[in-house]
């Protein structure tokens, strides 16, 4: 390696280090396209990516690669709703006609060797995991491609938008859930009392979101400006669907 290229490499390394420092305080794991339009007969599915903006940094300052990720959408069965910020007892079907199997994973092994969809006991797909292999290098950004089903907002409802809170785990070390800490993983989840939340971490009660805007049927006149609905997965669903289970064997969290 000649002197010039060595200098370039050194500069790149420094730039990367600065970037990591910046990302570690700002880049929460989110969807690449967090807001989409309602659609049924017009567009079909929406293609998207989970964006892993940074990996883990231990209390000792060691940067770790991300070795697995889990993404779980609310199942709409025992999910809780807010309407204009107020808790609501209405079921999701009052606002969305076809929520239940919202996501399909797209095969891609660029970052992780293995991946699969997460199904509810009825076989609906509510999320996915990816893991194994070399994982996500700690100074780089990871994209995990997937698509979401076209969402049909109930035309007789007053919903002008419906936002789904999405629980995400970025795993850097496999531990039991009792040993969860930001040394081992980042959790971007709603604080609903599940096992999958780390108090005082930047991801605490900071889930990713997918907002669906009403774009097909106009609001009924009686609705005025309409309402914004937020759908939050239950603790029971997250405890059931976040673990990575392969052929009946739970791989993560460790047991």
């Amino acid at each position, binding site marked *: 390696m000649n002197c010039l290229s060595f200098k370039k490499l050194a500069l790149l390394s420094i730039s990367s280090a600065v970037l990591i420092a910046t990302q570690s305080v700002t880049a929460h794991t989110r969807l690449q396209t967090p807001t989409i339009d309602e*659609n*049924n*007969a*017009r*567009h*079909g*599915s929406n293609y998207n990516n989970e964006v892993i903006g940074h990996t883990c940094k231990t209390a000792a300052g060691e940067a770790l690669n991300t*070795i*697995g990720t889990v993404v779980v959408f609310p199942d709409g069965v025992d999910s809780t709703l807010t309407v204009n910020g107020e808790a609501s007892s209405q079921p999701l079907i009052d606002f969305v*006609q*076809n*929520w*239940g*199997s919202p996501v399909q994973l797209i095969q891609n092994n660029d970052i*992780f*060797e*293995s*991946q*699969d969809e997460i199904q509810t006991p*009825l*076989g*609906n797909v509510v999320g996915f995991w990816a*893991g*194994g*292999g070399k*994982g996500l290098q700690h100074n780089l950004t990871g994209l995990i491609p997937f698509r979401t*089903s*076209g969402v*049909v907002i109930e035309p007789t409802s007053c919903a002008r938008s419906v936002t789904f809170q999405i629980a995400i785990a970025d*795993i850097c*070390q*496999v*531990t039991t859930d009792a040993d969860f800490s930001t040394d081992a993983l980042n959790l971007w989840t709603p604080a609903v009392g599940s096992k999958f939340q780390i108090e005082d971490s930047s991801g605490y009660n900071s889930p990713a979101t997918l907002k669906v805007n009403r774009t097909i049927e106009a609001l009924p006149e009686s609705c005025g400006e309409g309402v914004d609905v937020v759908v939050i997965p239950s603790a029971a669903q997250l405890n059931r669907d976040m673990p*990575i289970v*392969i*052929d009946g*064997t739970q*791989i*993560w969290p*460790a047991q």
Partner: protein
Amino acid sequence: MKKTLTTFALLAASHLQPLYAHSGGATLGEDGLNASATGLVRITCFDDGNGEPAKLTMRIIDHSEPVEGLLISAQLYKGLMATNVTDQISGDADYSEGVELSAGPGVYRLILNKTAAGPRRFDVEWHCKTADDIHTGTEIIVDQFQ
């Protein structure tokens, strides 16, 4: 203790995909006791680029051995329109006749039921199609299965 997820690769290799696109099978009333065992499903027909949906077509096959008075049926409805079909001969290699409901794009409901107690192992096929019978966007959600 630090561990990596390299075990994923080995374990995932044996993971089988149980369902194929737009067909699926299960056993209704598996405990053999519930004559009222019912499946409830939503199917969304949308334009995936192949054209605007005009209808949903469906057929069903009962793989179980014949039992007198025990047949599986499927009812399909959307809005104010409905149809139904029954596999009249259990255990043979033939599907029921196909039925279609021409109710355009949107969310259809499919109900599966049977005439008496006893398990029925079945497969069902569903396809959203354009007016020219071109296969178009089809997605399914299971709300109940007993």
